[in-house]
């Protein structure tokens, strides 16, 4: 019985940790943790827009941020995330979300870094969380300070009521 309880505790802890990952995911590379600027990566990877610095960038209270990348097929350049996979669709009427996707305007940027793919990924996210439809409330772009020519495209959207 003691073993069973220990195992149960382990499962619970693991699940809670996984929960943290659901909304904490971002384009952080594992090896960034050992890089000289690892502190910047911790801060910038999940950078939240400030509500008082620029009204157009504000994420109002109650808005859930969904920062993170899907997986992109390196050949087709298309996001692979199976939006219609069983159990993958959600819809919370009236709930607001903020999603972010990186893209690049550098001359040597790859197709999978293009704004086209960024928009597609954001639409996949919107469909994932608002399966029955949504309203786009605002969108904006901010520069990625780590690399000239790189940007983040932000969408703030609300599930259809």
């Amino acid at each position, binding site marked *: 019985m003691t073993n069973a309880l220990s195992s149960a505790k382990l499962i619970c802890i693991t699940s809670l940790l996984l929960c943290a990952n659901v909304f904490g995911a971002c384009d952080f590379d594992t090896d960034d943790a050992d*890089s000289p600027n690892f502190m910047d990566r911790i801060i910038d990877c999940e950078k939240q827009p400030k509500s008082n610095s620029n009204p157009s960038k504000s994420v109002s209270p109650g808005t859930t941020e969904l920062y993170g990348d899907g997986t992109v097929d390196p050949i087709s350049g298309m996001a692979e995330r199976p939006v219609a996979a069983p159990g993958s669709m959600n819809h919370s009427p009236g709930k607001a979300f903020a999603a972010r996707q990186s893209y690049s305007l550098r001359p040597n940027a790859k197709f999978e870094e293009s704004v086209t793919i960024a928009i597609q990924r954001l639409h996949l996210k919107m469909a994932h969380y608002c399966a029955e439809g949504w309203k786009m409330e605002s969108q904006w772009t901010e520069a990625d300070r780590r690399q000239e020519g790189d940007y983040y495209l932000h969408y703030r959207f609300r599930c259809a009521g």
Partner: protein
Amino acid sequence: MNKVLLSAAVASTLGMASYGFADGPIDSTIYGKVNISVVNADNGSTDQWKLNSNASRLGVKGKTEIADGLYAVYKAEFEIAVDDGDTKNGQTFNQRNIMAGIRGNFGTVWAGKHDSPTKLAQNKIDLFNDLEGDIKNTFEGENRVSNIVAYTSPKINGFATTVAMIPGEGADVDGDGNDDTGLTDGISYSVSYSKDNLYIAVAGDQDVDSQDLMRIVAQYKIDGLKLGVMYQQNEDNLGTKDESGYFVSAAYKLDSKTTLKAQYGSIEDDADGDKEDSLSLGADYKLAKGTKLFVFYTDNTDSSVGEADSDATAYGLGMEHKF
């Protein structure tokens, strides 16, 4: 018993769902990687096949804004052994970098057990990190230090610096026969400049891992080519080692999936004339973002004066998946 486990699993899954709809950001992220390789290692006397875990790891990191522009930052990373579950002395997890700090416009003050500024300054010019060709097998200075207290400046016009103090906590870190109990018994620092595709750093240690050390690192990227070079001098506290050496590496991206890699390092001890060389060749094949296959060959040679060279070679095939 199974019912207990099942109930726990269901309960925790439901917990996951409810967290999924919680308002506001959760600022922790789990990350990690599994890196395994099948390796043939021959040290001249033993020739064997092995499955290696190559510092596979699991970590949690995050930040919390505690005041306007002021963050608490943290990171806790543990090694896992994918091959046999034993990271060290029967332990399932072995501590890697763990730190906590305060970050503001002034920079970051942080502390914990962590790679020294000197090791961080290497900036992964070591293309065979955690494999048999790892630079740490040839060069001093690749230290993960306990009890480190550090300050990292903001990046200003491309320049950044990190200075770390390492209390001895009663150990004899400088080898003078006395216990060291001060705050700055060991010191490690780095000054770096980075802009566009160029990275340059000067770093050094004093009484860290019984070494005084200085290294210069440069890295440059030109289209698909990434070049790295390092020069290092170090001597130990006992005066039995006085080394200087260099390291060069090159990675060339053939296409969107394939990268060829090569590196060579050589260091010579001026005190006794001993010499160590390391040559590694390899290739990565990217399967997806965060997932790759790799092959490598490494030849580490240890030449001691008056003795026959000791030659250790290894080749292998592996995969890495980051998450």
